[in-house]
């Protein structure tokens, strides 16, 4: 096992953690914003997938990686808008509407890819672009820190900066105040003339935008192509990360890193003689354990109050 520790404490592993955390972090920040506004968005998976395809297609069409990114984010926002319209205007159960979006995305992207390029399953004939990596001056030269933190895809930095931005948005702006008010007591917000619907629309569109970033990273950073079901449950893991992050942007950062580490660990473990199936299971098992720990803590906190009462 000694060499396992060597791997975990290597700069490569640190780099890998940040890389695989990126899409999860984007999606869980998106989930966080929507939940703060009192609307659960479980369509992150499908939205990321659709955005990943949009990024590849549009970057190939425009010849610009940036164009692809913008396209992916716009598509993400549109799906957020779609979910909002159904959930808020037509009063579709938001979980069922999101499931519908996920279902549409998994088949629809295959359909879309075929219509756009004639490719089946993987975008091999699309000359899509990749978003640039960024070498951070000075930091890049420093041993250990350099290899871990420098030379990441631009979106990895965007993801981590977004944590602070989301914090400022939620806690330091009027919109954030409204989002939290709507999520905590929609009637109160309504009674002072804040449009609950509009605020939730904004939150869902923003969560779609974050999923869009996550999708763009997957197809234009993590790898350089689109393939069927390439999100592989990351959108769902992000929901768990959000749930464990206790509604705080920095909490979400930590839990996303936890899941990212599990993912990276799964990749690292492949070098050992552990059956690959178990390695693949790691992130999902960690998620369940995380949920259990989280629920247990909430549960025992409630019980503690009760026991103290009896004493």
């Amino acid at each position, binding site marked *: 096992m000694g060499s396992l520790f060597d791997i975990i404490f290597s700069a490569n592993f640190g780099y890998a953690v940040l890389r695989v955390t990126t899409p999860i972090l984007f999606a869980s920040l998106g989930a966080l914003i929507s939940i703060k506004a009192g609307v659960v968005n*479980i369509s992150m998976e499908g939205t990321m997938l659709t955005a990943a395809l949009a990024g590849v297609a549009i970057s190939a069409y425009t010849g610009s990686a940036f164009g692809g990114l913008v396209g992916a984010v716009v598509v993400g926002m549109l799906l957020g808008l779609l979910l909002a319209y*159904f959930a808020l*205007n*037509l*009063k*579709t*159960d938001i*979980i*069922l*509407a999101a*499931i*519908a*979006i*996920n*279902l*549409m995305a*998994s*088949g*629809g992207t*295959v*359909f879309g890819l*075929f*219509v756009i390029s004639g490719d089946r399953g993987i975008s091999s004939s699309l000359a899509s672009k990749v978003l640039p990596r960024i070498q951070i001056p000075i930091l890049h030269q420093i041993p250990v820190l350099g290899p871990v933190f420098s030379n990441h895809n631009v979106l990895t930095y965007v993801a981590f900066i977004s944590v602070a931005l989301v914090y400022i948005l939620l806690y330091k702006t009027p919109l954030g105040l409204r989002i939290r008010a709507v999520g905590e007591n929609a009637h109160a917000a309504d009674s002072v003339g804040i449009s609950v619907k509009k605020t939730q629309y904004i939150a869902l569109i923003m969560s779609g935008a974050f999923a869009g970033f996550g999708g763009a990273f997957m197809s234009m950073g993590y790898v350089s192509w689109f393939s069927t079901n390439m999100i592989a*449950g990351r959108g*769902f*893991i992000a*929901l*768990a990360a959000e*749930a464990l992050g206790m509604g705080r942007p920095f909490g979400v950062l930590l839990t996303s890193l936890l899941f990212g580490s599990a993912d990276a660990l799964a990749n690292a473990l492949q070098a050992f003689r552990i*059956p690959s*199936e*178990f390695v*693949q*299971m790691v992130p*999902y*098992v960690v*998620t*369940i354990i995380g*949920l*259990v720990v*989280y*629920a*247990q803590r*909430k*549960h025992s906190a409630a019980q503690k109050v009760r026991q103290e009462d009896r004493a």
Partner: protein
Amino acid sequence: MNKRVLFETIRTLVAIGVALLLALIIIFSVSDEPGYALERFLLGPVTNLRNFGNVLEMAIPLIFTGLAISVMFMAKQFNLGAEGGFFFGAVGATALVLTFNLPPVILPVAAIIVGALAGGLGSALPAVLKARMGASELVSSLMMNFILFWLGLFIINNYFRDAMAGAMASHRFPDAAKLTRILPGTRLHFGIFIALAMVVVVYLFLYRSRWGYALRMVGLNIRFAEYSGINTKSVILYSQIIGGMIAGMGGTVELLGMYPRFTWFQLPGYGWDGVIVAIMARNNPLLVPVFAFFLAYLRIGADIMARVTDVPSEVVAIIQGVMIMLVTAERLLAGWRHRMVVKEKMKAAEAAEVEGGGVQHG
């Protein structure tokens, strides 16, 4: 009551109509020969027996997962683990038929039981976490799908893999395990009877048994159930475990009816399809086969269309999504319904006035 049924029926028809219209638009915009494509899509499944057989074959797993999801949704348990349960049930059945040498009839029956247990096991964890600690079954069941998938693959790969087969596959199933084909010229198998029997069983369970009653009351209003003395925790447990078991049965029936060996190296997706069927059927077990057939018809139609024209079959995914969204859209046509109610009540109020009574109020 009847008015409600009428209203729901109209809404479902409108949803289907809009979705098909959308399909029409998509087909016309992507195809060079839209008329032919459309004809194949809508009529392909009934042009010959083999195609129609395909529809019925496909309806079988959809009935099972549709029932599984209906049971769980009826209790308002958003367990989405039918996907994993279906897959893991098939793994369990594979393990059984490749390990024990039992005579015909007994072997598939045993396999179905083991498959059901395996599926139930898969949804037990989210159920326990929900009942004991209030952890969201939604997220944990989604995670379980992936865990069961990899665990299942591990079991097949390490214990039942046929090294001689080209691709990854288990050993061949003994003939005794297979479900009889019942319609020559198709692959339609005995499983359809098992599926329809399950429809009846689930209906009786939900609407005629005390456990089903408790389950439905928990789904309608959990606080009312608690107040009435219903053990809501046990309902949360058994609704999900039974759902998982039905999914596991479905996986077994599908595998033994359609495949000579275990060859699934992807989640088959029937669990999600079950969500579609259950939603369209409003969780009513008697409607599940209707919509399972409908969905299967669309799928097979799209496959036939894709084979002979330039329209990919995945167009169905879009149709399904739109249907679910519209069917569950409470506000769709609600304005019309509200006007209907208002008119009626105003009339009633005026009638009451004539009689000298007051307005009924709440």
